[in-house]
């Protein structure tokens, strides 16, 4: 953060936002990691814990909104301070959404745990989650250091997640066609994969926000896209 304000309590306000966001970031990271672990291990107890933790992020987001509105009203922030505060609001929303997605994965653990979990299916998901979690961790570092370069490189890497998600999508479709008994589990896993891919998107959003907060400039709107699943179809049975 740049040098101190003449009014020191202004710095306290901004520090509050930063600290609260880091806490939210930590919780979001943990929730996603635990939810995926619970899925892999069919651990419903752990999944239950993830579900209950979501409340922390909801409260965090609300607290940040309240504080940000109050600071704007009280201080009429300008330039980098204003960007910082608006950035905090946006990042809080993204982190809250990450928490929701983690929670949704955890809910599916409970839904699918009764079924025999095809190990090989879960493995692909684990890899996807690792990538998304790395993105999330690094974007939180980029925020902590206000590093536009790091933020930019994170955004570039989202392409990788999209590509893996696309191949996972294809794989799950194949399993469903192989054996209709896989359909329930695979559908849930597909949603889990989608959730993880969305977590990567939120990390990208945060990266864009960090870049803006740090530089006052927006990154170009177009970024690499490698998610083709929106147009993908399974061949009709017996068509080949």
């Amino acid at each position: 953060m740049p040098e101190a304000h003449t009014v020191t309590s202004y710095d306290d306000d901004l520090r509050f936002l930063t600290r609260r966001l880091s806490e939210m970031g930590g919780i979001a990271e943990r929730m996603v990691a635990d939810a995926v672990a619970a899925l892999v291990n069919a651990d419903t107890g752990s999944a239950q814990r993830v579900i209950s933790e979501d409340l922390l992020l909801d409260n965090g987001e609300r607290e940040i909104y309240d504080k940000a509105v109050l600071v704007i009203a009280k201080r009429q922030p300008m330039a980098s301070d204003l960007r910082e505060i608006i950035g905090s609001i946006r990042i809080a929303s993204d982190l809250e959404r990450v928490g929701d997605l983690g929670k949704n994965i955890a809910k599916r653990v409970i839904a699918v745990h009764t079924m025999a979990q095809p190990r090989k299916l879960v493995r692909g998901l684990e890899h996807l989650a690792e990538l998304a979690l790395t993105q999330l961790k690094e974007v939180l570092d980029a925020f902590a250091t206000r590093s536009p370069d790091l933020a930019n490189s994170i955004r570039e890497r989202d392409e990788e997640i999209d590509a893996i998600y696309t191949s996972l999508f294809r794989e799950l479709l194949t399993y469903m066609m192989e054996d209709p008994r896989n359909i329930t589990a695979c559908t849930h896993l597909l949603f889990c994969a989608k959730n993880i891919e969305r977590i990567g998107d939120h990390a990208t959003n945060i990266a864009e926000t960090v870049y803006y907060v740090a530089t006052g400039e927006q990154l170009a709107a177009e970024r690499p896209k490698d998610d083709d699943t929106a147009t993908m179809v399974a061949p009709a049975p017996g068509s080949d």
Partner: protein
Amino acid sequence: MSEAATEKAVDAAIEESAIKMRGTDVSVFYGEKQALFDVNLDVRKNSVTALIGPSGCGKSTFLRCLNRMNDTIDICRVNGEVTLDGENIYAPMIDVVELRARVGMVFQKPNPFPKSIYENIVYGPRIHGQVSTRAEMDEVVERSLIKAGLFNEVKDRLQEPGTGLSGGQQQRLCIARAIAVSPEVILMDEPCSALDPIATAKVEELIDELRVNYTIVIVTHSMQQAARVSQRTAMFHLGYLVEEGDTDKMFTNPDNKLTQDYITGRFG
């Protein structure tokens, strides 16, 4: 001339014609002390230019160069050039009284003459020989008060003293008085610093409306006011022009660290 060169020349001419006043290497001395250092600043036509900076930065000094108000201070000396529509206002043949009719001024504290509202307004046009008959005077009073957004509030008491109005009304009376002589440029030196928020809002609304017909330069200590009313902002510090640019950019992402520190409240 090639087509591209012609186009460039036309663009330059258009840009040039958008400039109402231009300060070139303006330096100001009060006795031995230099208050402004080689300031180069353009004032664009039909726009509001805000001058900001901490106390003693030279913003008011620069403002006062634009209608030679500094002439009234004996020990003050101005170097460099200030032009109005391309003409140097410090040239020897310039009639300062006529200049100040073209470049009017509104001060920090409302300073109506101790006369009636009506007299406050007709005084200027009369001494400049712009009005002589009663009908002309009535017309200029009504027109100026309407433009200053004050007419409806005072139309039934035009013969009452201007000093009997509220602070905000007095300031708008002073603006009406400045407009009465049909100036081209209006200089405002912290016009709202003695006003309450409601009166301030009325004056800001007025500034926005006046911009259509006039060029306005405003000195203000309120960052928010500068951000609200101006299209261009110039930041001064210790007698130097630090940064000048689009107001929207200056208050969201200024280039200069001094500007950044000043507008975010991290100064000194």
